[in-house]
């Protein structure tokens, strides 16, 4: 085990200001990303993970299948990781801590779930409807970092011990496991602090030496005590990030500006923090990890929470201009200058951040689940497409998905054998299968809740739930205050367009019968006749095309899905099941599982992205038409059906353009949409990067809910992003970029 440090890389005479340090740190980050991309990349979030050879952990399984299950094995393995985990320390940085692995991913892929709790009957249905059931999926809910700020690791340990003494032996396994983990964390953090001390001695450059000394003192303190200063609070957050990522990859952040505001205001009042330092610290936080944070939005009384710190957070993200998952919560009282500044950042930096959520749509939706306005406002953006009340709910957000295109396919193949079949027969059949798929999904979630502790307890995130330590149980065993289980439908536009195409061409125009259409689909539109029919089907009314029959189908299908999901709440009292429409990065895999569909889609082609329409939805590609369609299919129970928008930077290259984009964002969210992800993509650059991704190692795109370095994506995924750009930019041609491309990031890299 050897530490990864960057000691004595600069002469003693070198001086550093914050901007220079950030430039160097950013360059290192870009280089590390390129290394990751060359090592194979991944179609997912950046996670701030470092590729390294210094530390390879060998899982110690407690099952013959090579996996680990239950408290003891997770505790032992996690503690072993911490005991061996080397320090990553960059003297340029304000903070230490980078993650090297996710323990949960060291398990054999096929054996994540404890085989003592099989679900073979459900698996048949999961396979039939191509359901991502979420059983054994972990985290995907939000910790309340305030608990850590208030107690520190030492306070959490004390609380665990106190509560253990007042609880019966049924809870001892929980307490003993958590106590062992927290003791290991504290030991680990003390060891890190000592190592930084040693590095401070070694470092020759006086400027960096001073930084390391301060860093060591900060780390020594936050190893067990609650943070006292702005810097300590962020260092605490950095460690929390690494500790939860290393355990099971948890990504949720929280309302960043409000969490840190007390420290900021207090340090400013004491004259120990300047805004320049605050920006530097925040930038280091964003460089460390692309965790999800929310900025702005209303407090419990509806007053805007935008503060000086919200501005500084934007400024920090702007300075490093890299993959960043910041969400601005838009409401009527949002500081207009802050909002405008964020839009300027979005268009100038073209890195897919920030994105925007609608307070009204989210709050009113969540209140339909029976929550108060106050509770609904606490539900902050914390993941790819999801919101969560920090420390209050267990959600399985973004882990459970039903491939609606496949459900349609099953129904179509059952109905289309009859010559006299009609669209209503297809609809009834679809509803039957939809209900079966949703019921199977609900049963899967209940199975997960029942046995997840025996598979993978939430040893880290448990500690940041309100009243969980007092209850002494894992979060899936009643440890959460609320259970709001997320079920997303994917492939909605494929289903909508397929119904609209069948209605028009089979039922109304009688161009073809259902059995003949089925034969064409089975043959994947082969032959001249198949080709003609495929084109005709594609000319049917499309979701996103405006106020047309497809929109009627959209609402019908949305209502059916929402109704089926909400019916689970009656079947399993005490638990909310909340519908949404999202695909995450499963568009390709879901598409491969579905043959040709009546919307003209060929067998195996990707399904539509998230809640977006299929490409070619409308000749003018009107953003408003697309967004109105997505607004119409919002389930309205507090989860999202996000809009994913690709825009050309040219549309906001002056003040008037920025004004129009501000208005566009407000209009999209006012019309009922919940969440807006925007990519500002220079068409020529993205095409050039698609051909040679390493030419633009710092090009970031918002793939779905998350931002990612374009070079990290697989060619298939890059193609998807390119296709989306082409959908709203139909004239996009192959690029004629000079070899020395002038489109690199605005921040020079040393």
């Amino acid at each position, binding site marked *: 085990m050897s530490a990864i440090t960057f000691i004595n890389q600069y002469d003693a005479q070198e001086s550093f200001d914050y901007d220079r340090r950030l430039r160097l740190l950013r360059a290192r980050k870009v280089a590390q990303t390129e290394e990751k991309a060359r090592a194979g990349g991944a179609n997912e979030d950046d996670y701030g993970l470092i590729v390294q050879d210094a530390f390879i952990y060998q899982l110690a399984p407690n099952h013959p299948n090579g996996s680990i299950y239950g408290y003891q094995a997770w505790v032992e393995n996690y503690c072993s990781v911490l005991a061996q985990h080397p320090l990553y320390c960059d003297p340029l940085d304000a903070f230490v801590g980078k993650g090297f692995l996710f323990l949960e991913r060291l398990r054999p892929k096929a054996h994540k779930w404890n085989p003592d709790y099989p679900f073979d009957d459900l698996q048949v249905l999961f396979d039939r409807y191509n359901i991502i059931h979420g059983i054994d999926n972990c985290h995907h809910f939000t910790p309340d970092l305030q608990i850590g700020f208030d107690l520190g690791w030492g306070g959490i340990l004390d609380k665990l011990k106190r509560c253990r003494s007042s609880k019966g032996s049924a809870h001892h396994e929980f307490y003993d496991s958590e106590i062992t983990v927290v003791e290991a964390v504290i030991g680990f953090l003390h060891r890190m602090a000592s190592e930084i001390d040693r590095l401070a001695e070694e470092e020759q450059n006086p400027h960096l030496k001073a930084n390391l000394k301060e860093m060591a003192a900060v780390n020594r303190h936050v190893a067990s005590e609650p943070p006292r200063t702005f810097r300590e609070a962020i260092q605490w957050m950095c460690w929390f990030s690494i500790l939860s990522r290393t355990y099971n990859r948890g990504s949720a952040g929280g309302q960043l500006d409000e969490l840190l505001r007390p420290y900021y205001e207090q340090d400013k009042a004491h004259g120990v923090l300047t805004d320049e330092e605050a920006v530097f610290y925040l930038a280091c936080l964003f460089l460390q990890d692309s965790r999800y944070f929310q900025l702005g939005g209303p407090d419990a009384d509806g007053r805007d929470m935008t503060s000086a710190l919200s501005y500084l957070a934007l400024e920090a993200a702007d300075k490093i201009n890299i993959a960043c998952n910041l969400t601005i919560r838009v409401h009527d009282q949002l500081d207009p200058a802050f909002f405008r500044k964020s839009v300027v950042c979005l268009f100038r930096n073209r890195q897919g951040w920030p994105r925007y959520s609608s307070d009204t749509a989210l709050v009113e939706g969540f209140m339909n689940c029976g929550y108060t306005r106050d509770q609904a406002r606490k539900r902050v953006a914390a993941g790819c497409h999801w919101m969560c009340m920090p420390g209050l709910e267990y959600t399985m957000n973004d882990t459970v998905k039903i491939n609606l295109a496949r459900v349609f396919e099953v129904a179509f193949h059952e109905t289309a054998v009859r010559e006299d079949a009609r669209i209503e027969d297809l609809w009834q059949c679809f509803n039957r299968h939809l209900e079966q798929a949703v019921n199977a999904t609900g049963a899967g979630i209940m199975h997960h809740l029942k046995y997840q502790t025996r598979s993978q307890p939430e040893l880290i995130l448990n500690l940041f739930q309100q009243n969980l330590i007092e209850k002494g149980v894992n979060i899936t065993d009643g440890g959460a205050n609320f259970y709001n289980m997320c079920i997303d439908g994917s492939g909605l536009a494929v289903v909508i367009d397929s119904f609209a195409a069948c209605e028009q061409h089979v039922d109304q125009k009688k161009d073809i019968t259902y059995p003949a259409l089925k034969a064409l689909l089975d043959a994947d539109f082969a032959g001249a006749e198949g080709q*003609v029919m*495929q084109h005709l089907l594609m000319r049917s009314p499309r979701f996103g095309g405006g106020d047309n029959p497809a929109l009627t189908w959209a609402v019908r299908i949305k209502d059916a899905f929402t109704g089926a999901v909400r019916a689970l709440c009656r079947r399993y009292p005490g638990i909310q099941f909340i519908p949404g429409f999202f695909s995450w990065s499963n568009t390709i895999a879901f598409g491969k599982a579905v043959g040709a569909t009546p919307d003209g889609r060929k067998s195996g082609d990707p399904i539509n992205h998230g809640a977006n329409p299929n490409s070619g939805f409308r000749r*003018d590609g009107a953003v*408003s*038409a697309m967004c109105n369609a997505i607004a119409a299919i919002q389930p309205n129970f507090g989860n999202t059906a996000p809009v994913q928008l690709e825009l050309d930077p040219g549309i906001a290259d002056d003040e008037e353009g920025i004004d*129009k984009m501000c*208005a566009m964002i407000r*209009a999209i969210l006012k019309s009922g949409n919940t969440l807006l992800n925007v990519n500002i993509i220079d068409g020529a650059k993205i095409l050039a990067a698609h051909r040679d991704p390493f030419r633009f190692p710092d090009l970031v795109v918002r793939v779905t809910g998350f931002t990612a370095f374009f070079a990290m994506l697989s060619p298939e995924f890059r193609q998807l992003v390119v296709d989306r750009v082409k959908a709203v930019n139909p004239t996009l041609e192959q690029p004629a970029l000079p070899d020395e491309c002038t489109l690199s990031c605005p921040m020079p890299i040393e």
Partner: protein
Amino acid sequence: MHGLVTEIQRFSLHDGPGIRTTVFLKGCNMQCGWCHNPETISARPSLCYYPDRCIGCGRCVLACPHQAHQMKGTLHVIDRSLCRACGRCAAVCPTEALLMAGTVMTVDEVMREVRQDRVYYDESGGGVTLSGGEVLCQPAFARALIEACCAEGFAVALETNLNAPPAVVADLAQKADLVMFDIKLIDHGAHHKETGAELTTVLENARMLADMGISLIVRTPLIPGVTDQAENVAGIAAFAAKLASVRYYELLNFNPLGASKYASLDLPYAFKDSRPLSPEKLSHLKAVAEAAGITVKVN
């Protein structure tokens, strides 16, 4: 009330203030050789044909009552002299290789589309733009559309060439919030040669609108070799600067995208080799125009 509409384009960012829906009316009374919407010039529906999309299915051959389409082997050919623009072939063409430009629509049908973006207009200070072709060529329909928009509280802008009798112009313009009009050339002879219309009509209408206090934007499409001389721009800017209600003068760079549209109509296109003006030339012309003491924008 019916009108002939080429297209309704929602989420339009370049046809006036804010976010707009632009309704393109069909038919124009000028004949500018550079028009980048040639399908809007004829006052009747026009059949456009994009051969690269044709899959040779022959459905058009069966659909056309006038035998305008033929298949020569797998190659589809069209004899436009036989075409009566009935639209039957375009309705059955599976690939949109055949498209009709020009749909007869009622005011209600247009408003149904326009209404869908109300929140975008409200948030951005946008609204509806009536464009062309030439909006003045369908004055009754345009008037009915403007009244329908006003009744629903939508701001209306007109994009026009001002080539119509003053009474027609005044009647439509007085209900609009903004009139954007072109002055392509300031030399009377050149104007007549290139557009087929009298410059005097345009200038007199412009003065009349200014006297009526109607908000105006003056625009010049910069066509290489035709309108992009400094003297022309300076002359138009000087005229525009004297209009009391003018907001600004806008120079529109040449848009080469019209070429495929000319090909789709089997029309010759004299500017197929022309390219947009360089940034240097644009800024020079901007400076020239600004010298007249008017705000200038370049798009």
